[in-house]
């Protein structure tokens, strides 16, 4: 099973911009969900929806309130890094393997990135309010989770089975 990495510099720059903002939000615990919606270019329908639920673990919230930079340095009861990496690897492996059950994407597609943010979040100009981009009659598959000291991430993929 191959994992493909984009080499398109435009896509890289695009994702980098998103990730920069996500980083700020994640550190301050402002977002609860990250959605990657794969949309058909022809029909505009959402055909696949990857949802990553972000749970900010209790200890972090207070830390984030007092100051996000300090919260990063709390050595107490920390999870070993190898374990975290293992969990992340497991998810990536699972996502890669999901091509076996996900329907084949017909035609040309694009993707959108959504976040479920707190109401009082500060959003840069590029981020605008949107609908949830849900899929009607979607099949949902819960994938693995992973957690760090600060966050717990649940993964869920939703896809439409089409006519079948």
């Amino acid at each position, binding site marked *: 099973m191959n994992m493909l990495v984009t080499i398109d510099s435009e896509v890289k720059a*695009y994702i980098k*911009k998103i990730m920069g903002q996500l980083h700020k939000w994640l550190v301050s615990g402002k977002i609860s969900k990250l959605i990657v919606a794969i949309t058909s270019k022809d029909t505009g329908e959402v055909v696949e929806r990857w949802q990553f639920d972000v749970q900010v673990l209790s200890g972090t919230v207070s830390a984030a309130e007092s100051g996000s930079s300090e919260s990063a340095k709390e050595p107490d009861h920390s999870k070993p890094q190898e374990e975290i990496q293992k969990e992340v690897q497991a998810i990536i492996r699972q996502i890669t393997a999901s091509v076996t059950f996900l329907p084949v994407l017909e035609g040309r597609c694009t993707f959108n990135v*959504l976040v479920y943010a707190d109401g*009082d979040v500060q959003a840069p100009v590029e981020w605008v*309010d949107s*609908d949830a981009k849900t899929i009607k009659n979607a099949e949902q598959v819960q994938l693995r989770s992973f957690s760090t000291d600060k966050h717990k991430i649940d993964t869920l993929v939703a896809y439409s089975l089409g006519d079948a």
Partner: protein
Amino acid sequence: MSTFSTPSRPVRRTLFFNSPNVPKQPRLDSAGTSSTLSFPSFPSMTTTPRKHATKSIGKPNSPLRNDVALSDWALTSSALGSVNSTPGKITKKEKALRASAKVDRFIPNRQTSNTSISKLEASESSNTSTASSDTATDSTQSVCESLQYRTSVAEACGIALNTRILEFQPAAPQSSKPVDLRSQYNRPLRPAANAQARRKVPTGPERVLDAPGLIDDYYLNLLDWSCGNQVAVALEQTVYIWSASTGSVSSLMDSTNGTYVSSVRWSGDGAYLSVGLSDGDVQIWDVEDQTKLRSMSGHSARVGVLSWDKHMLSSGCRDGSIWNHDVRVAQHKVSEFNNHAAEVCGLEWRADGAQLASGGNDNVVNIWDARSSTPKFTKTNHKAAVKALAWCPWQTNLLASGGGSQDKHIHFWNSTTGARVNSIDTGSQVTSLRWSSLYKEIVSSHGFPNNYLSIWSYPTLTKNVDIQAHDSRVLHTALSPDGQTLATCASDENLKFWKIFESMGRKVASAGSTLASGKDMAKTMMIR
């Protein structure tokens, strides 16, 4: 709060939802929930300029649902002021009273419920409140109240409170190249010969000579190119020698009246030319001296094909017999191969002289062992006369044979096992086959309909190029001694030269290794 200080246009339109008096609104930091979103207040219909309202509602990128959520959220602050336009027209005092009267926050009283519903309905068009200075107690009470109907409204609408769904607006970059996933998932096991891998072959002739009077007969072999770089071509009764090095032409011989030359073939050293005649005579000529060395008669019919193996000359006759002549001895006929029922038109010794391949008008390919007079293999796969025969220069036991107009196939044989290893349907009569000594390729010449020269890669059998060579069927071909140039002559009476296996500076030396000096050869091979 930063967005508030530097509001850009799209955000402002979305977030501030027709509130022209926003800047005048005091901040209510004490409430703890205030934010950029909590500011929008809903001025009454009378105070709101109509223009603003229509503009924000009609905007495509703020869906109705969001507006509901927004206005819901905005109620926090709108409720801080007096709710002048609510249906009940509650005054500030009454409102304060009502708020204090509430005890159970889970069961909102009827008035509150009414308010929330009416708020929801009204939120689209207009609402009330102007900036007013409330007391601190008043504001906390109204926050409590607004929380209640906010939750109830949110429950009714199925909207999670305190969250916004944000989308990264810029569209994802388009892929510049067309994406074809089939190439990813459906990879061929063997990469096809694509345009880049294919060798570039010049499709124009290097030189064209006239060949008037060339007999249009498939079963004859009237063209050969010696290792001394001389081209022999038989035009009816006369054999001409054209020197590729100097461009000079000389007439070697004329046959006697009533006969014509039916085949020519150079000996291996390029010094002698064997000539087959229509009366069954086989003559050997010294080209340097332009003298006939000997005449070997005996065949009862025309000799359509000849092949040399050192001092042995094999001749194929119209009666189907193949005679082997030892040109050194008086009793020249040393053996006879008889297995063809019709005219022999293809005859080719293997380079090492161990095997002889013959093809005939009886559609049979015979592979003979030099020591035996019975064929080692007899192949009947072709459905037409087999004239085109060629032994592979890099794989000794590989023989290619091409069939005539009813057959149109090239078959490849393993002459050790007799197995057919490959086949090509060319779609046209195969008149001759030549292996390239420089490339792993074979060129075939064809008749009707296109009179192509086709170059095939071996063993992939992919067609490299088709060259429309002549106006009528290509009858004979011959390769130059350096292996780069192919001579073709056709019934349109043209003799053409094609540099189809141009060496690009490699392998020339090895190709000319049979000659005295490869370097010299490359120089002399320039066709003038």
